[in-house]
């Protein structure tokens, strides 16, 4: 007894061993630790998904290449898409949301910390399940290992007759399990933002990041659930002999497409709205001006949320729908461009007349605005059904959505990384390396994805593992693949910068950017309890009020 009472405090004083620290992370329910785990997990899968993309691009660098077999190419294509959407983009954005939302609204933690941990581990398990298919997917059939049905897994290719073995089941289960995790996270975000705000933070005084995560969470509830339902149907088809997508028994392959894209299109907005949120926080701070048109920004986000639920079938113009359906989905798709355009004007309005600081986060955000604009414009082109009949399923479409996902989402994410890295780690990143990262990645991105539009217009279909020489595609494919290596170099600089700064970076202080939202009011990294006393806010920029008591914002709002 006596020895115990002496030993305990001594054990607490000594630095914990690696197992204890690991254990602490595994059992944690702290939103900041869970947020960081989401982000690290996603970065690992970003590298894996990037390797898969690189394998495809090496295969396509010259015609008639034999770098990988057609079977492996199909697996890489499926795994790249599934990984990047479900196990990179979603977790990384959930990670930032998890980390930032409670801090920004002055809360102690998420509304349901244990549900939060559970959701993370579900998603982590889903990713492991997907990659276990490389080992376990063969089953007893000697069939292919990893899923090879494409990331949208159109019927009837996914039926037992055409997709033997267990590869498709691994895909279905991985997506289903991570989907349950996403729904749990979305429920948590909504409950946190509605019920946990600090005193004085009315909805109209909430940071835009919290607003946009609220809309994103609502979209997750409405969009991920149909995918869950469709995956359940696919499992019933494959295991119980049901006929949902079985055309032999009167089932419909087209209804799978509808169910998939009812998920698939809002999903794009699930991913891009948190990125709008990053840009809406970073651009004002680096323009030294409050955001231009806050209420319009909120309204536009909510409008995007609603309209994005009505546009899904623009992914399906080429399957032959009625002219009414074509007209409706062309119209609704063009309508969704309006609130998006409003946002772009608001960001430019924020920069207009501001004192712009061209640090790395701002560089990425400016690139985001213009690249996302171009992605939106090619989106408007593809929204016109007759144009889509010409270019649907070509490399033009691949170029378009990678412009959204890489040029939009990934650029905003890099900006967010540099902006919040000092808060999360307590250390400053290296600005020179960050600029090097920006320019190499920027050049690589434009080499790859600007030029990818051209073979698409010249008729190169997507998802082919090789092509004939002399169709005018050769030189474009060569340059596209060269661009990939610039992007890899950029990402290596990024990872190197993070690691170096984590160990050697100078101390960042609590508020390195002279910013205005509550996360900068606490220490870097924040203590487990976030705020020693619950903050009270009176305006949208509580830290401005604190720093400028002679001219606070709440006098004008």
């Amino acid at each position, binding site marked *: 007894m006596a020895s115990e009472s002496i030993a305990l405090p001594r054990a607490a004083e000594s630095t914990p061993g690696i197992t204890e620290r690991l254990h602490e992370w595994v059992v944690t329910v702290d939103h900041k630790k869970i947020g960081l785990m989401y982000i690290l997990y996603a970065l690992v899968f970003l590298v894996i998904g990037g390797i898969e993309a690189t394998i495809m691009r090496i295969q396509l660098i010259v015609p008639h290449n034999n770098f990988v077999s057609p079977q492996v190419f199909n697996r890489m294509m499926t795994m790249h898409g599934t990984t990047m959407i479900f196990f990179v983009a979603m977790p990384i954005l959930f990670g930032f949301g998890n980390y930032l939302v409670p801090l920004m609204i*002055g809360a102690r933690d998420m*509304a*349901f910390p244990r549900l939060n941990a559970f959701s993370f581990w579900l998603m982590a398990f889903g990713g492991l399940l997907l990659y276990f298919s490389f080992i376990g997917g063969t089953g007893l059939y000697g069939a292919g290992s990893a899923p090879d049905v494409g990331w949208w897994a159109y019927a009837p290719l996914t039926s037992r007759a055409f997709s033997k073995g267990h590869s498709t089941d691994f895909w279905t289960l991985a997506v289903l399990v991570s989907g349950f995790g996403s*729904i749990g996270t*979305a*429920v*948590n975000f*909504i*409950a*946190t933002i*509605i*019920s*946990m*705000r600090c*005193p*004085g933070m009315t909805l109209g005084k909430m940071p835009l990041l919290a607003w946009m995560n609220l809309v994103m*969470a*609502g979209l997750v*509830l*409405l*969009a*991920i*659930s*149909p995918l*869950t*339902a*469709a995956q*359940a*149907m696919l499992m*019933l088809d494959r295991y*119980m*002999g*049901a*006929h*949902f997508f079985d055309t032999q*028994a*009167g*089932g*419909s392959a087209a*209804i799978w497409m509808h*169910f998939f894209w*009812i998920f698939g299109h809002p999903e794009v907005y699930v991913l891009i709205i948190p990125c709008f949120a990053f840009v809406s926080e970073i651009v004002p701070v680096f323009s030294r001006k409050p955001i231009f048109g806050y209420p319009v920004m909120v309204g536009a986000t909510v409008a995007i949320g609603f309209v994005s639920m009505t546009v899904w079938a623009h992914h399906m113009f080429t399957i032959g729908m009625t002219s009414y359906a074509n007209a409706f989905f062309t119209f609704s798709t063009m309508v969704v461009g309006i609130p998006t355009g409003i946002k772009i004007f608001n960001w430019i309005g924020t920069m207009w007349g501001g004192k712009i600081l061209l640090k790395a986060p701002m560089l990425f955000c400016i690139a985001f605005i213009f690249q996302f604009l171009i992605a939106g414009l090619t989106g408007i082109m593809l929204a016109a059904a007759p144009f889509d009949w010409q270019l649907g399923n070509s490399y033009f479409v691949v170029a378009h959505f990678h412009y959204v996902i890489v040029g939009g989402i990934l650029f905003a994410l890099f900006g967010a990384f540099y902006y919040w890295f000092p808060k999360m780690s307590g250390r400053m990143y290296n600005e020179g390396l960050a600029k090097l990262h920006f320019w190499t990645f920027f050049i690589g991105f434009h080499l790859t994805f600007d030029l990818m539009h051209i073979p698409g217009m010249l008729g190169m279909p997507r998802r082919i593992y090789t092509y004939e020489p002399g169709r005018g595609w050769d030189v474009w494919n060569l340059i596209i693949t060269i661009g990939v290596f610039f992007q890899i170099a950029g990402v290596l600089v990024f990872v190197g910068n993070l690691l170096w700064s984590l160990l050697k970076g100078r101390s960042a202080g*609590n*508020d390195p950017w002279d910013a205005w939202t*509550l996360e900068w*009011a*606490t*220490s870097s990294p924040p203590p487990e309890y976030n*705020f*020693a*006393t*619950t*903050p*009270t*806010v*009176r305006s949208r920029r*509580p*830290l401005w*009020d*604190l720093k400028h008591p002679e001219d606070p914002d709440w006098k004008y709002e």
Partner: protein
Amino acid sequence: MHDTAVAAASAEPQWVLPSRGPVAMYSLILAESSIFTIFVVAYLFYIGKSLTGPYPTKDVLELPIFATVCLLSSSGTIHFAVAALRNGNTRAFGTWWFATLALGSIFLFETGREWHHLIYEEGLTISTNLFGTTYYSLVGLHAFHVTVGLIMLALGMIFTLLGKVRQEHAERSEVFSLYWHFVDAVWVVVFTVVYIVGR
């Protein structure tokens, strides 16, 4: 400076936000509604598209009036249970809670009887035709939600019998009652789609 943003003015009105439990349950219900919508759409889309029988005619599929009455009235009993607990009347709570559990169990038993009839007398399984596929998946999805609800009700019943349920648990039981009301409301949709539109 870095601990609080702005000192609280003590004269300000009290800061009250919606409780997190009901907000989370409404969010979950939104997600669940979305799942059910997809199954309902699939059911409606495949009405009359089965290539072989049995078809959902009036002698194959009987109206489950008794089961429906039981399930819908269980919404009332759980409401009274929550109201009783809010007043601190744990005895009345236990009675109404048990009534809910019993009515829900009767519903599930009746669904089981209907399935037994369809499987053994009509020869309809999930793999027979599109009617079987969509019928068993939609009704089964609902029955799954009833089952989850019954497990929760049974847990609540055990706590009640052990004397662990007190007045301060009223909000938790109310959050669960939201789920149970949702399961009842979905049955109204399923009933309409399966037994009225599709028959």
